[in-house]
């Protein structure tokens, strides 16, 4: 199976490279990469779901805003997600249903507190294999 994402180093912080055969898969894999940094995704069950809508200036910033929206739900509402169903995605708008559960200290290990997705070294490319994106996260 093709790799969904990789984790990369950055001096003060950390980054992700996400892959996808189509743009929807790319956005979903980027979100998976984010939550794999925060916790062990296998420990998260699908107990709740949330419908999210994100809009932005263009597709690159839509990816940043999408991750920032998820970070908000983690930091403010303590929700961990492990599955993302991207229902529609245009160049500047996204609709998705996200599945996961509330943070439970007895069950979930928090590995890292991701605080923001940045525009620093942001890259979103399409090649013959599909899509690839790089995002640096502030932790």
């Amino acid at each position, binding site marked *: 199976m093709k790799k969904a994402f990789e984790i990369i180093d950055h001096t003060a912080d950390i980054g992700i490279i996400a892959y996808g055969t189509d743009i929807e898969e790319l956005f979903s894999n980027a979100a998976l990469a984010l939550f794999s940094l925060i916790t062990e995704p296998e420990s998260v069950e699908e107990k709740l779901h949330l419908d999210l809508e994100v809009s932005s200036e263009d597709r690159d910033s839509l990816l940043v805003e999408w991750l920032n929206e998820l970070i908000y739900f983690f930091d403010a509402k303590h929700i961990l997600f492990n599955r993302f169903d991207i229902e529609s995605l245009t160049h500047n708008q996204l609709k998705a249903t996200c599945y996961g559960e509330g943070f439970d200290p007895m069950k979930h290990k928090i590995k890292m507190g991701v605080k*923001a997705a940045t525009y620093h070294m942001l890259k979103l490319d399409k090649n013959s294999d599909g899509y690839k994106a790089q995002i640096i996260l502030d932790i």
Partner: protein
Amino acid sequence: MARWQGQLIKIDDYRWKIPENYKTGMRVPGLIYASKEMLESLREEQALEQVANVAFLPGIVGYSFAMPDIHWGYGFPIGGVAAMDIKDGVVSPGGVGYDINCGVRLLRTSLSEAEVRPRINELINELFLNVPSGLGSEGKIKVSQKEMNRLMVEGAHWAVKRGLGSEEDLDVTEEGGCLGGADPSKVSDKAVKRGMPQAGTLGSGNHFLEIQVVKEIFDSHIASIMGITEIGQILILIHTGSRGFGHQVCTDHLRVMEGAVSKYGIKIPDRQLACAPIESSEGQDYLAAMACAANYAWANRQCIAHWVRESFSKVLGKSPEKLGMRQIYDVAHNIAKIEEHTIDGRKVKVCVHRKGATRAFPAGHKDIPRRYNEVGQPVLVPGDMGRCSFVAVGTQKAMDETFGSTCHGAGRVLSRGAARRGIRGADVIRELESRGIIVKAESVSSLAEEASQAYKDITEVIDVVHQAGISRKVAMAIPMGVIKG
């Protein structure tokens, strides 16, 4: 990572210039404070390119500065300083950073190492219980939406009004712990929701609380005015910021700035440098929201300082007054401020961005506390948990050269990933214990990220700013007990 191949012109042993013609679009040259030895490792990453990129921003005056603790940030380098003329300049959230008013507060005590050493475990355990820390930590104070609106405007005053600290603490806090112009209506509901449960928490990452021992006093007169009189005296350092609240404010306004860049036709070489004219509605809205986050951070450090005093008092059975637990100072390390500076003999209002940099105003400046009028504003420079921290003061030279700014800390040399791969958290604890330093952390594995090897040697950083004359070192202290979030 590619090496930085750009040109650096030596001015003297501690000053290096990136000429204005290095890149088309630079409005001013870059000026880097560093030793020759530091430059080699600096070239290993792209922080110097970021110094050049900042020089593109409209209204920048003088230089795009880098302090010796510079490392690669987002858009702006960490350790970067840039002043923009408020008439035709821009304000950039990237020039402040995500953790708005991340900063440090230093308390002195009348305790000696001999008195504290036998009780260090008890003290660290009590502090660990009494000061909420770690990921997802929630405060012991419950802040309602209404209270949050007050906190954003009043800053540290909000905490003092609730009995957490004294008026004297406010006197020795930058801006009196309350930055003007804060407008909660410019802060998103999301930021408020992230901020409410996290008020009064240390947080995670590089934030810490440290019990220190004074090891060296370089200027006994200035040190005595700060209440540092003896080698072996105990100090307490608190390092934290505006938590998820500041991050959300930055994220929200970066997004607004993205639109402003095209609206005002601003040309920037890096998206993360998104900005807006200071006098535009986007610029003013950011400054109003940033002030709310700065005030949140001051309230945060005020609460924590109070619980530190409580903890010492409980363990040692004496009141904080009897223990001499007075505040030396509190400084911001990530902030943008409207200040008046003299440029070519002319008084000019500028917006000084300090990202991973400290204000360093000289003796006699109107904005420093009366207690320090004769010696200059205290500058607090924490090192990593295995080495030491410094107390310095601002100088006239800083005022003349760097818009009254200096370094803020050690600066990373190893990425978190590289530190994790090469160092084990448990080894860090053992190694520090062998040197008499007790560490307690919410997450042991994350300790590796904060190990000494991951940071530049703070002593070299301080030597550069001292030799260059942009601050003067006063005292040095080493850690005895550390709480990491």
